[in-house]
């Protein structure tokens, strides 16, 4: 009976040591590998509208970003005005954004500054499309990381027709269009 007991104690110690080492290795590896978060590659996004409708949050974590250094400060802004706008002014009937999230401010003739009200933006990308087609492409979509809950499988990424979603390190979570980026919201 004795040798058998000895044997099972040794086995127990062996298993415990393996579990301990395995756990430690897993913990170190987890700490070493960077935490990843979801982000949109602006070069791949085709502004399909699903960023507004497919996020698990009631209002999407995707928002419009503006690269001011790329903007033409155009009077006839393709991102602000509807294609069939009757005037170049702030009239609701002329605005492209479905939630009136873009503010237009006169700077000096003929320049206007456009800023995004993040609370109103639903990430539909309509303005992004208009700006890309007719302007300099200074508007683009990004996942806002103070809002995103970082689902292990992003619901928008699953529905994205352009494969524009990718995982990026949480330490560098944005794919900005310009390194002179200044976001005013």
């Amino acid at each position, binding site marked *: 009976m004795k040798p058998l007991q000895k044997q099972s104690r040794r086995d127990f110690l062996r298993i415990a040591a393996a579990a301990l080492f395995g756990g430690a290795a897993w913990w170190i590896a987890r700490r070493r590998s960077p935490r990843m978060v979801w982000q949109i590659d602006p070069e791949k996004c085709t502004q399909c*509208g699903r960023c507004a409708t497919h996020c698990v949050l009631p209002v999407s974590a995707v928002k419009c970003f503006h690269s001011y250094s790329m903007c033409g400060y155009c009077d006839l802004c393709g991102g602000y005005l509807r294609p069939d706008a009757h005037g*170049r002014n702030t009239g609701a009937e002329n605005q492209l954004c479905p939630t009136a999230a873009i503010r237009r401010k006169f700077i000096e003739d003929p320049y206007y500054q456009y800023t995004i009200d993040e609370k109103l933006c639903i990430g539909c990308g*309509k*303005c992004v499309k208009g700006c890309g*087609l007719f302007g300099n492409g200074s508007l683009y979509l990004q996942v806002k990381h103070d809002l995103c809950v970082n689902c292990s499988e992003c619901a928008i990424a699953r529905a994205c027709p352009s494969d524009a979603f990718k995982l990026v390190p949480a330490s560098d979570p944005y794919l900005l269009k310009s390194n002179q980026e200044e976001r005013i919201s």
Partner: protein
Amino acid sequence: MSKVKTVLSWFFVILLVMTSAWVFLNRNRRAEPGKNYIYSTEEFQQVDPALIHYVEVEPLVPSFGNPSSLAIAPVGQIYVGGPNCVEVFPDGEKIQVPATPTCLAVDDDGILFAGFQDYILVFSKERKSMLCLSPSKKAYLTSIAVDEKWIYAADAGNRRVWRYNKEGGNPIEIGAKDEVKGVRGFYVPSPFFDLDIAVDGSVWVVNPGYHALENYSSEGRLISSWEKAGFNIDGFSGCCNPAHFALMPDGSFVTAEKGLPRVKIHNPDGSLRCVVAGPDQFDADVTGLDVAADLQGKIYVLDPGRGKIRIFEKKKK
């Protein structure tokens, strides 16, 4: 035997249940974005067929991909610029250049003027480089035109037109804001800024942010202008259009737009004469359509997306 049958039936039942569960769990339960969330220029894509007065004929295909610039010599040859090369049609001549030209012009003597980002190289008839002009370090040259006396260069970087004599001297700036003289200044949000010389020696320049064409004397005096903004067929869409234009022998304008790619002809007073090619004749995402017209009224369109010079001829009545 019956045991095998039972096992197989259970296997298929389980497979069916698992597949249905997988389909159910993965099915898209979210509504597709409605019309309100999608940007569309569809209503402006359609052009009344009665307005289209041109038909497309066989294109010119340069030996290199990515053509970047286009010019027609007064004697009719077509010059196409691309990566480190300018190709001449129909001669087949290939001129080596140090980079990709952003713009080209050829004068009566066959002298070639090639604009690169911030300098112009002038090549003799023997294709020897004989002059280099560099207006400014900040220059972004987008168009060149020459006549027997002057070289004009449109510089989107400085929002100016530079005028030199044929030896590269006597430079003046055209288009600086001067309210007293009625010059509002060029407003160039993106690098699309074109010019051409009229038969009377004056120069027409696009003021793209205003959707305008402005006419200046060779001394830089504003003579006249016209403008028309809007997505409708008689206007210029977006924030920097027309992206390119060329003057026809009768003084009318062939214009090319970006965003809503279309090529049209406007009368000398700016009113719409006809359409050469509508948006459905181009790839939706094409930018940088350049245009030129020859003395017979044929329209040449540089289509960078398709890597061709597309040619349009007036429809026969």
